[in-house]
C-alpha cells in the first residue's frame, strides 16, 4: 500500500502524557472527543493543521510512558497514516501495531517539518519527495508484521483464533 502525505516533525521523548494526557482521562470512553486533543500539549495546532494521510516524524523514544492504548488510537483516528521515528518505546510499539497504525523505525534526521513523503508499506521504502532522499526502514518482527497486515490484533485474532508464531 502506498501512503502519501505531509510531515509533522516532533523531537525526542514524545510521551503518552503529551499525546493523551491524564487531565483528559474522563474522555477515554469518548474517543472521538479525545482525538480532538491529540498531541495538544506538544503542538496545540496539530489536529487543526493535520490532513488525513499525513505523517508524524519523530526523534528517538517515541511513545514512552504509560501503556494507554488510547495514545496510538487517537493518533490513528486523527488521520495520521504512519509514524516514522528513530526509536519507539516498547509498549507504544505493540499498541500501535495492535490498532493497525504503522510505526516505521528509520533515521529521521534528514526529514523536515512540512516535507512531502511517499511510503511504500509493503516494500518498506520511504521517499522524501521534498528533498529527494530515500530512507531505509528497520524490519519489525514477523508476528507484528502479520498483525499489522491484518489491520490490527482484533482482526488478526478473529481470523486466526490464537497466535501463530511459526
Amino acid at each position, binding site marked *: 500500500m502506498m501512503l502519501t502525505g505531509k510531515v509533522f516533525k516532533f523531537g525526542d521523548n514524545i510521551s503518552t502524557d503529551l499525546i493523551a494526557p491524564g487531565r483528559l482521562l474522563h474522555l477515554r470512553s469518548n474517543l472521538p472527543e479525545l482525538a480532538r486533543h491529540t498531541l495538544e500539549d506538544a503542538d496545540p495546532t496539530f489536529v487543526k493543521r493535520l490532513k488525513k494521510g499525513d505523517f508524524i516524524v519523530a526523534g528517538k*523514544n517515541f511513545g514512552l510512558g504509560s501503556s494507554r492504548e488510547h495514545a496510538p488510537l487517537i493518533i490513528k483516528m486523527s488521520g495520521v497514516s504512519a509514524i516514522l521515528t528513530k526509536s519507539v518505546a*516498547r509498549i507504544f510499539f505493540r499498541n500501535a501495531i495492535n490498532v493497525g497504525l504503522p510505526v516505521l523505525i528509520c533515521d529521521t534526521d534528514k526529514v523536515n517539518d512540512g516535507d512531502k513523503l511517499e511510503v511504500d508499506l509493503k516494500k518498506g521504502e520511504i521517499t522524501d519527495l521534498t528533498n529527494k532522499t530515500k530512507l531505509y526502514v528497520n524490519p519489525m518482527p514477523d508476528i507484528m508484521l502479520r498483525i499489522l497486515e491484518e489491520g490490527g490484533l482484533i482482526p488478526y485474532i478473529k481470523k486466526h483464533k490464537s497466535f501463530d508464531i511459526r
Partner: protein
Amino acid sequence: MGKTLAEKILSAKSDTDVCAGNIVVVPLDLVFVQDSTGPLTLRQLNESNLNTIHNPKRTILFLDHSAPSPAKELSNDHIFLRSFAKEKGAILSEIGEGVCHQIVAESFARPEDIIVGADSHTVTAGALAAFATGMGSTDIAVAMALGQTWLRVPETIRVIVHGRFAKGIYAKDLILHLIGRIGADGATYKALEFGGETVATMTMSERLTIANMAVEAGAKVGLFPSDSTTQRYLEDQGRGEQYIALAPDPDATYESTTEIYATELEPTISQPHTVDNVAPVKEVAGIHIDQVFIGTCTNGRLDDIRIAAGILKGRKRHSHTRLIVAPASQKVLLRALAEGHIATLVESGATIVPPGCAACLGVHQGVLGDGERCLSTSNRNFKGRMGNPAAFIYLASPATAAATAIHGEITDPREFL
C-alpha cells in the same frame, strides 16, 4: 548454555529451551487492568468475539487511578468494570483498596509467574522474580480471553550493585542514578536484572521501588532473584508456600553489565520533564516547591511512610508547601496507622488521601496549578503528567520529599538524619 532470569522463566513456561531474540507464546499466571485502561480492554474483548475469560480467578480489575471517582464519565467507567467483573466472576479491587501493583505484590505475584497488566508499571512484580510486563488494552483483552500472549525473549542488562547504602540514601536514589546513567531508552525491549551484594540484603520494599522504575529506562522487565528476602515477604503476606528459589545461571550471557557502588551514591533527584534528567539533590537544593507528594506504586509502602514520618516527627511542613500522602494500599494504611505514622504526618500538616494512584497521573487529589513545582516520590515527571503542562515535577526519595516539605524548597535529607 547458562540462562538469565528472563530466559529461565520464559523457557520454563513455554516448555522450550529459549534464548534472547526468540519469540514465544506463553501461558499467563495473572492478567489485570485498571480503571484507565480497563474500559477499552473490555470493549476490545467484545469486538474480538472472544467473550470468555480464560481464568477469572487470576483476572483482576482494579479501581485505583480515579478512586474515588472525580467525574461522572469515570464513575460510568467504574460501573462498566464492576458489572463485567460480576458477570465473568473476575476479581474486582474496589476504590480505596490500593494501587494495582502494590496489591499484586502483596497478594498475587509469585516467583516464576508470567504477569501481564494494562499498565506500564506492571514491571513492579519483577521484584518477586515474576516476569511481569505492561501492555495495552487490546493485548490484555486477548490475554484475558486466551490465557496466553506472545513475547520476544529479551536481551538482559545485568546491574550489579556493590556495598551498603549510606545514611540518607535509598533504593529510589539508586534507580534514579541508573536511569540517569543509561537514559530513558537505555534498556528499551530489554530486561534489567539486578544482582550483587547490595541486592542480596535489600528489603522487598526497596526491590519493588527499583523494579517499578525499570520501565522508565524502557525495560520490558526489571527482575530480581527469588531468595530468602522473597521467602520472608511471602510468609509475611500469608503466602509462604508459594515460595520457590530462582536465580540466574552463573554462566548466563548478558548483553552488557553495569556496576553501581552504593557507597558512592548521593541523594538523587530527577528534574523536569524527563526521568533521566537526574542530578544530586545538593545541586538543585533551594528550589522553591509548592507541593510535596508522597505515595504511589514507587514509594507508597510502609517503609516509605515510616521514613517520611521519622523526618517529619515533631516538625511542620513549610507554610507555603502542601504535603499530600497516599498510602499504596489499605494494608499499608492500616499498618501505618497502627505504628502511629499517620498521626505524625497529620500533625506535621499532611493531607492524607485514600490508598490509590492519587496525584500521580493528573486526574485528581493534587492537580498542579500553572507554574507550580511539585516534588513527588512517584515515577514520572513528563510535561503534563500531574494534570497541567504548565507545571514542573521533580522525583526523589520519601526522605528527600519529607525534608523538602519542611523547608519548602528542595532539601538534602541528610540534615535531618
